[in-house]
């Protein structure tokens, strides 16, 4: 399949890229790793007349610590996230999540920025970003703004990005030492989108959960922040009854569609099962 015709642009800086996106109008799209956009272009689900390739912009790459935060450039690939030693020590849930995205070839090319900015409910990183309380840095011709990941997703492929804007970096508050986190993803095969998945991060104090946050993947039009489910476990020792209650709270906010991955009722149930598993595993990893 051959995509429709387009003009190709390869800016060298963010400034140049946002100027292009603004000047070229709504038919221009930024191109990151392309592993969502190019298949969509082949199917004519997307037909941009201009592609602004972000591949040559050095300032969009890399992982750095900044104060108490970890800042990751939008064009950093999943493969780079997996290979990064600092990230593996400070924020292991990112590596765990990246490893269940697609397959090795796709991870060499697919980027964190593309994954979070595309608005595809099947993407794994958005729920992790809701769970971690991440902030997205957004550049437009008018300048830069920041938006919380929890305010970013509005619907399937619908985000708070305005025409001409692009995500340049993802800022994540570094979780405290001794935290426990887990990403549990149910999928039919390697490379598949989640039937349901859950991200959990928690801290403990004297055997009880001190703080907790939970995100859900692919069980609604947007990733979900399961605030109520997390509140239920705070203060508990994560006994079986509490885990069950939290799972039920997560299920109650899930509204998946029936598809090849299963009927809606099953996928809703699996959202709860993934939350229960992720809670248990996160606890086992917490100090």
């Amino acid at each position, binding site marked *: 399949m051959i995509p429709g*015709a387009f*003009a190709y642009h390869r800016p060298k800086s963010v400034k140049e890229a946002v100027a292009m996106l603004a000047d070229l109008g709504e038919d221009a799209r930024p191109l990151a790793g*392309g592993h969502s956009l190019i*298949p969509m272009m082949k199917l004519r689900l997307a037909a941009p007349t201009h592609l602004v390739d972000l591949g040559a912009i050095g300032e969009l790459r890399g992982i750095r610590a900044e104060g108490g935060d970890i800042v990751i450039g939008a064009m950093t690939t999943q493969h780079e996230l997996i290979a990064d030693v600092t990230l593996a020590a400070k924020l292991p849930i990112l590596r765990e999540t990246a490893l269940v995205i697609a397959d090795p070839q*796709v991870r*060499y090319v697919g980027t964190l920025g593309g994954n979070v900015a595309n608005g595809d409910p099947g993407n794994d990183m958005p729920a992790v970003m809701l769970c971690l309380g991440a902030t997205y840095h957004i550049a437009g011709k008018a300048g830069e703004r920041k938006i919380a990941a929890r305010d970013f997703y509005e619907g399937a492929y619908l985000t708070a990005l305005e025409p001409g804007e692009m995500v340049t970096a993802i800022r994540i508050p570094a979780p405290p030492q001794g935290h426990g986190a887990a990403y549990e993803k149910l999928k039919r095969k390697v490379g598949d989108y989640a039937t349901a998945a859950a991200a959990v991060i928690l801290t403990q104090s004297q055997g009880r959960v001190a703080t907790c946050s939970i995100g859900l993947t692919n069980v609604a039009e947007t990733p979900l922040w399961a605030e109520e489910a997390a509140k239920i476990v705070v203060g508990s020792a994560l006994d079986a009854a509490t885990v069950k209650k939290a799972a039920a709270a997560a299920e109650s906010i899930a509204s998946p569609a029936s598809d090849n991955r299963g009927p809606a009722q099953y996928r809703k149930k699996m959202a709860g099962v993934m939350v229960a598993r992720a809670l248990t595993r996160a606890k086992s990893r917490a100090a």
Partner: protein
Amino acid sequence: MAKAQITLKVNGKPVEALVEPRTLLIHFLREQLNLTGPHIGCDTSHCGACTVDLNGKSVKSCTMFAVQADGADVLTIEGMAAPDGTLHALQEGFREMHGLQCGFCTPGMIVRGYRLLKENANPSEDEIRMGISGNLCRCTGYQNIVKAIQFAAAKLAGAPVKEAAE
């Protein structure tokens, strides 16, 4: 649309060409350079038959535009054997361990196996299986592909390998 001029290295040789921006790398390799080793299988970035090595990464060339490869160093199955025709250890492994039946996935498997062994010279069976999880084979059940990559890893490490009878 205006064609773009690209300059890259393919299997060690410099290449200059004009491409339409929408030309996929796999079509450029197969139709403009006549390198028909990389195959078009699913055309949706699932099967890995189109895998080539680009700047030290395994990529699915059906999901990349040729213009994006401007300045890149590309390796396809055609570049694996030595100029005198001596097979690469991976090619030998696939032959010796019966790592293929129909052969359609083989170019992608071998090029992927090449990068896997560059990054991890002594992979476990699990690491090999995860490493080739982006490449589908519908004939072998993967057993002999794993053995073929193990054969190559041993041979590249200088270990004696048992060769099957011709």
